[in-house]
């Protein structure tokens, strides 16, 4: 889903007063667009310590049954904190150049 850039701006009469925004509007803003590096997750070496999930600033690491399940690329900005935090050798999460995934 692309970020809307041609939204019609609301006038003061219809605008919600008191600087109120609807909750959860950040869900519509796919910051995954910002990536220049992509985290690649290798399930075989993962020990499910959940450090990547704890440290991810965008809550982009998804877990299921206390196991790392996938990385949500709609929101992952490619900061690489997950890769740095990963304790396994070889690393379970490795940062790769985003360009090689362009379709």
């Amino acid at each position, binding site marked *: 889903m692309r970020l809307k850039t041609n939204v019609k701006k609301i*006038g*003061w009469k219809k605008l919600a*007063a*008191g*600087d109120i*925004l*609807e909750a959860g509007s950040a869900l519509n803003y796919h910051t995954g667009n910002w990536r220049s590096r992509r985290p690649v997750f290798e399930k075989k070496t993962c020990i499910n310590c959940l450090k990547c999930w704890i440290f991810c600033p965008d809550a982009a690491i998804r877990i299921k049954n206390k196991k790392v399940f996938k990385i949500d690329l709609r929101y992952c900005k490619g900061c690489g904190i997950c890769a740095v935090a990963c304790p396994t050798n070889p690393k379970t999460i490795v940062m790769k150049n985003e360009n090689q995934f362009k379709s």
Partner: protein
Amino acid sequence: MSGDEAVAEAMRQINPDVVAAYPITPATEIINIFSKLIAEGKVKSEFIAAESEHSALSAAIGASAAGVRAMTATASQGLALMHEMLYIAAGLRLPIVMPVANRALSSPINIHCDHSDTMGSRDAGWLQFYSENVQETYDNFIQAIKISEHPDVLLPTIVALDGFITSHSMQNLKILSDHAVKIFIGEYKPKRFLLDLKHPYSLGGFDLSDYFFEHKRQQSQAMKNSVGIIAKVAEKFEKISGRRYGFLEEYAMEDAQIALVGIGSFCGVAKVAIENLREKGIKAGLVKVRVFRPFPYKEISSALRKISLVAVMDRSDSLNNFGGPLFNEVRSALYDLAERPTVINYIYGLGGRDISVKEIENVLKKLAKTKIIKKIVNYLGVRE
């Protein structure tokens, strides 16, 4: 009761959910008395002993945004310390009512009455009511709840009382029954509040230049809307109290030739001076400004249009090379009149300097004889 005691009594009857406060002379008594009521279980309020006035108002803002009646109380430096939060409370459209016991802003440090504190925050977007005496303080406070919480307003209100002069002086007043106050203010039912989990939203976000102006325009409209609401609430208040309030109080203005414009306890003293001079044939009158924000420009223009000489009395100096705040706003309100009165300014009473009946009489006597005004801005009662 003293002014502070009357505010605490009004607060007891209103029974707000949250009171967050920090002490400062001469407003401390309000919270002292109210805290005792909380400790005795006479009110349901949750008390937050904040570490500063900035925190106190911040806590009140949080509580009000969460969806309950929240209050704080302060004066002078305390009001100045919470300055940024004043703008935030107004911008977030939270109906917080706050008593301010007018006290001079430092420096030099002074704990006595002048209006520099609330005048210094006159553009923060809060409504401002000034009280002449303890009765008005009590009455203004109760009306303020209803005005602030009105859905077309949703702006915070400062109820000002003169520090020490009103806050600490014992005066007679009539209070309403607990039941009457409860019915008058009703239950606080905000349309949107943060603890409403069924309708979640974010409050206090960021605006770029594409939306900030629209939000401010809304605030401006709310202040405009408050004019009509203030009048309606005064009508309703008269029904339960027998006391009628307006934006101004016009005293001896029907046939006045010269007039004073003033705020607060000064007006009580001025009324005595005017009575004395009328016995001597000087037709003087007084316009007391009760509602300063929203600024009642129409009412002021109407009250003063037949007067030839107006002396605006300021208990604070804007230090701007052109007089005090009330003077500048009154003068501006009169500008559009076809026949403009001469408007001059007297700055008096700074730092609690007393103003006497005699001093006011002398001013009026001089003005009654004056043909040509030599100085527009004057200082009354200062040693040269």
